[in-house]
């Protein structure tokens, strides 16, 4: 029932992402896989990255004027978006702060870690599907790192 949009600016320097768009998406996929430890499927036909364990995907990649924009379905998956932001900022990107774009949640900062370091309780909650455009059980996520 909607999409989440995230945008990162890379300035004049394109960061360390390849100039070719398909290669850039593949690089982001590899880095996301390395950061999370989760399998990331690169669907080149639709330029989408599927993350099956999270039941989510990143699609609609647009590379315009040193800016990278990507979408996912609502609601934003906290683990996926926190780690995507970690990957994009590590690549030299600066997150766009416009109101309707995705912004990190300080309460979810501790999710920027490998999947297998999260507690079983958190992994269970993060695997749950969304419900009517919301993730009501995310409020039960642990408040401290396991």
């Amino acid at each position, binding site marked *: 029932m909607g*999409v*989440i949009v995230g945008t990162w600016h890379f300035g004049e320097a394109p960061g360390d992402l390849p100039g070719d768009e398909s290669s850039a998406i593949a690089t982001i996929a590899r880095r996301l896989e390395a950061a999370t430890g989760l399998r990331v499927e690169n669907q080149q036909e*639709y330029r989408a990255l599927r993350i099956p364990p999270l039941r989510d995907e990143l699609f*609609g990649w647009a590379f315009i004027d040193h800016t990278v924009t990507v979408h996912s379905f*609502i609601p934003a998956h906290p683990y996926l978006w926190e780690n995507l932001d970690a990957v994009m900022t590590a690549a030299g990107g600066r997150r766009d702060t416009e*109101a*309707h774009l995705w912004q990190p949640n300080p309460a979810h900062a501790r999710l920027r870690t490998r999947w297998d370091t999260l507690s079983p309780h958190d992994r269970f909650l993060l695997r749950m*599907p969304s419900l009517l*455009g919301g993730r009501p059980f995310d409020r039960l996520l642990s408040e401290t790192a396991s």
Partner: protein
Amino acid sequence: MGQRGRPDDRLGVPTKRQKNEATTAACFFLRNNAVAVTVRPHNKAGLTRSGTDTVGGRVVGVIQMAGGALEIALGAGAFATPTGVTQVGGVILIAHGADTFIAGFRSIWSDQVQQSFTQQGAAAAAKKLGASDVAAQRIGTGADLVAGVGPSLTIGVMRRLAIAGAGSASERVAVAYLHRGALEMGHNAVGIRQGGTTAWIHFAGMNPGRVIPVIPPPGAAGAQPYILTELAITTEQAGQATAAMHRLRALGPQEWALFGPNCTTTVREVLQQAGIVVPAWSQSPFLLHLGINVGPEITVVGGTAAVVGGASGGSR
């Protein structure tokens, strides 16, 4: 519920005992892997009514209420579409749908099939003009059918023509539906094609979100596999829809909500300005996709079932 037929029962024919007993609405007779269902009405005293009724009042009542609700939903969509013709059709659908819905409620309440006031009124008028009982009954049913199914059928035919003519039309509106999965909701976007180019918008973000252009646009290389439904519209409708798009974009950030604003309500608003009737039940991406493509047909089927069910009540 129901009683099992004895081994020597003929398929689907209740025994004398079963005929005489007060029963619940449905009886099942099973023999040689075949199932026959006989539904018999009964009144509050538990006695089976004789007469022309062959279907229980409660079953028909539910069908009437469902058919009436579908008519009201399509009528509300037609009334919200700012063209004189659709608004008149919408009023007829809402009024007849409410009549059918109330008849359904009365059927369930009394457990006897009740006809709509439209049917009764038309039958009474025909009788007054000298028609026989049977002819008056048929005229009443016919009037009921025309009032309920007529506007839905007209909207359905117009919709088919608009979809069929979209390929060659210079102005058209396109609805994009992105499927997500059986349990989770997908996404909608809307595009207006004018002068050979299509401008796409969608509602993006949540807290807050806003109406922005779709990048990459549906149908472009590398875009997600959107399902597109295109409808031909007039130049005037395209202008109104484009104005609606600009107005929605100018609203700026808004908090996303399940019943709007969201991607589906954004598309609905543009479609209404383009003169496209959308049933009121099209409140999610999938239901909007369904409503655009077969909404009027669903209403025709529901409305017909309600009228035919009501007609089974015979004259009273």
